[in-house]
């Protein structure tokens, strides 16, 4: 079969997608100073945020996939 006109472009696209996560612009663990700043968190008080989330979980019956863990009793 004759290669299509856009074969080079398709190859380039495939290569880009395949290696996209391999390039390393990641923030290194020792560079997280600004990310670790309390200013970067959504809420100021982590304990009250956890409590609020737990209450909402229980009230709305939509549990899981959050950050709050249940007590393990299976009763919310």
């Amino acid at each position, binding site marked *: 079969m004759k290669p299509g006109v*856009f074969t080079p472009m398709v190859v380039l696209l495939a290569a880009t997608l395949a290696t996209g996560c391999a390039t390393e612009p990641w923030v290194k663990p020792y560079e997280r100073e600004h990310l670790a700043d309390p200013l970067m968190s959504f809420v100021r008080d982590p304990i009250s945020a956890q409590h609020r989330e737990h209450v909402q979980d229980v009230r709305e019956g939509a549990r899981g996939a959050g950050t709050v863990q249940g007590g393990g009793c299976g009763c919310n």
Partner: protein
Amino acid sequence: MIARYQLFTLNAVAAAGLILLGVLTVSPARAALPPVGQAAPNFTLKSDSGKNLRLSEFRGQVVLINFWASWCGPCRQEMPLLGKLYDQYRNAGFVLLGVGVDENTENGRAMSRRLGVRFPILFDREQQVSQLYGVDAMPATLLIDRDGTVRYVHRGYKPGYEQTYQSQIRELLKQ
């Protein structure tokens, strides 16, 4: 029908793109802490006492290097425990170097004072040593034997690690 020169251009662009992609993907060597058995890379940093400290000066002693930062929770948990180990073994030929990676040296200094640690704190403001060591977790702890060889590498801190450190320090001190 696509013209011949257009096809050529298309091919050229795709080839250039592939080459660029290759360069981008391959060139940065994946950073990781030095493997066990390798000689510990040498470095010099300013310490909290104002003196410059060089790793090779501590040849003949067991050295624990701990990378930490004032904004790192587990580091803050670990530091006083490391301080205890330092106080316990310093007379037996053990040195502990705390490499603080804070960009603002004052933050690191204040934190180490607050935690009351007595071991030398080095300031890696430019993060060159962190880069040299390829620190891939915070905190990171390396144990170096009397010959300057990396013997144990620990990533992160979980309660109980200090007991592992202690037994490894004792083992290296005996050699």
